[in-house]
């Protein structure tokens, strides 16, 4: 490698740092966007206008409301300056630890998900619409012509399992919050949350085993690479086409795992106030809510990564579109990478929208129905799916 005042290690470090920040911010923005769309989408579904009153006054008598986006800002300020109310007899350590257990796993699981393919900075900045950037294009072409990195924070060879391991720690947030609050409603919520999350984690895992079996991988980067291949020359080998049944099983289990409508019994407002975070107030409550929104966004991320080809665009290779009828459209490296990021983001947006739509369309289950669905329907079906997949793979299919 060419010697320069910025060594390869420093550049590596800076890119990793920027990538981690970008992914973290992406998940944060998705959380913020979800809390906005939760309001607006429910308003549209229920024939209301929704949040639109919080606004920033502009000179000239106009108001900047940004379709209710300013409400998010107002909420953040409101929860920050509110009284930090605590229950009278509570367990200080566990009460505060619970927030970390709820929030930290939600934010770090996205680290193993690739947001785009390989990025070569030297080539990336050569695109005509990026040439105006000062200094960077020359720096990379002159000093690091071969430098490239994957648009993925951590390339773990056990990436998929990492997601399960870290999101499994989420359960402690519900349990500890419910237990330490010294409130019967919180305790009920914590109990419901824990038993629900344990039950659905199993079918969630087993429904993915078929996919792992077909691709012979748990490395998420390789999983996405495998999904970029084509079957019969025209059909992308996306998870949804190879394991359509597993997609639905996984989606339902993941919604239940994240305690969303119609499975939101741990925080059923009409029964147990707010479940395990009844006794939290101010910013602590906001963190619980925000963690939930981020996990929902993460469900969208993981569904689009595992079943919809992640960042891949059908027929798009590193140099452009290779159409199934033999045509070829050349694209610059920067365009390809930007299209990949856009495709990933659009897929995530779509699933966020779908999950919100389900949340406001379906009524809540009863608790025994929830348990029955988890143990007697989803689990046997996912095992069946796995067995059928194994038989087909063993017979030489896929």
């Amino acid at each position: 490698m060419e010697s320069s005042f910025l060594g390869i290690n420093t550049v590596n470090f800076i890119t990793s740092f920027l990538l981690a920040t970008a992914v973290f911010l992406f998940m944060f923005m998705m959380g913020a966007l979800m809390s906005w769309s939760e309001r607006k989408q429910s308003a549209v579904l229920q024939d209301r206008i929704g949040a639109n009153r919080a606004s920033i006054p502009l000179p000239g008598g106009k108001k900047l409301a940004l379709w209710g986006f300013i409400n998010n800002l107002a909420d953040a300020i409101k929860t920050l300056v509110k009284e930090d109310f605590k229950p009278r007899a509570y367990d200080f350590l566990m009460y505060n630890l619970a927030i970390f257990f709820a929030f930290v796993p939600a934010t770090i699981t996205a680290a193993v998900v690739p947001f785009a393919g390989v990025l070569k900075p030297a080539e990336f900045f050569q695109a005509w619409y990026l040439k105006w950037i000062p200094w960077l294009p020359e720096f990379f072409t002159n000093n690091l012509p071969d430098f490239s990195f994957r648009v993925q924070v951590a390339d773990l060879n056990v990436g998929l399992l990492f997601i399960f391991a870290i999101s499994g720690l989420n359960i402690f947030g519900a349990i500890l919050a419910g237990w330490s609050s010294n409130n019967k409603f919180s305790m009920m919520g914590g109990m419901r949350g824990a038993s629900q999350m344990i039950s659905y984690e199993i079918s969630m895992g087993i429904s993915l085993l078929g996919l792992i079996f077909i691709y012979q991988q748990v490395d998420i980067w390789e999983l996405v690479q495998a999904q970029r291949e084509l079957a019969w020359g025209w059909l992308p080998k996306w998870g949804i086409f190879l394991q359509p049944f597993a997609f639905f099983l996984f989606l339902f289990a993941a919604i239940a795992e994240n305690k969303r409508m119609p499975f939101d019994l741990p925080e059923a407002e009409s029964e147990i106030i707010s479940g395990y975070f009844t006794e939290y107030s101010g910013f602590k409550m906001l963190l619980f809510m925000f963690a939930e929104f981020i996990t929902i966004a993460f469900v969208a991320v993981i569904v689009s990564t595992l079943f919809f080809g992640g960042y891949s665009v059908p027929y798009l290779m590193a140099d452009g579109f290779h159409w199934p009828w033999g045509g070829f459209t050349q694209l610059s490296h920067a365009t390809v990478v930007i299209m990949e990021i856009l495709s990933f983001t659009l897929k995530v947006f779509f699933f966020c929208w779908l999950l919100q739509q389900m949340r406001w369309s379906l009524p809540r289950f009863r608790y025994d129905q929830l348990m029955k669905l988890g143990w007697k329907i989803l689990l046997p079906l996912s095992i069946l799916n796995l067995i059928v997949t194994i038989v087909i793979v063993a017979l030489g299919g896929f």
Partner: protein
Amino acid sequence: MDFNILMYIVFGVVAIAGGLVLLFAKHPIRGAMGLLASMVALAGMYAILQAHSIAIFQLIIYAGAIMVLIIYFIMLLDIKSEDYLKPFSKLFWIGAPILALLAIFFIYKLYTAIGGKPNAFSDLSSVAAPEQSVQDFGGIKIFSKNLLTKYLFAFEYVSTLLFAAIVAVISIVQLDWKGRKNE
């Protein structure tokens, strides 16, 4: 000092501290949290030693499943009962010498393994994976193959050990209950 070695030491200290919290915490849920910290720290140590699969399974099985079960039971128990505050059973006097013997054995092994090597603590090459197979070493394929062929017997044998531990715990608890009835 290498960052990995620094983190290895940090995780080691956390694991030991978590174990001590488990032993000495008055409240069962604090003890459970100590155990959880210890398990997560162990997973971190495995990850530093490139055994990614084992680290992940440590998290999934121990931190994600077994600890949830333990905490679930603690929440359902009547923790105000004095039975749970009694620190040691009567079998303490049998257990303590055995523990001391074990401790001496492990310290002796540690001494023979690293004694006389000046850089023993900053040189992890003897425990870390060989350099050429680092990429595969921690991978799920190698792990599964080894678990189901080379280490299958050891794996099953350890589970019988767990069974023995369960029987021991039940018998100790029953011993205490019988003793209390006689009082």
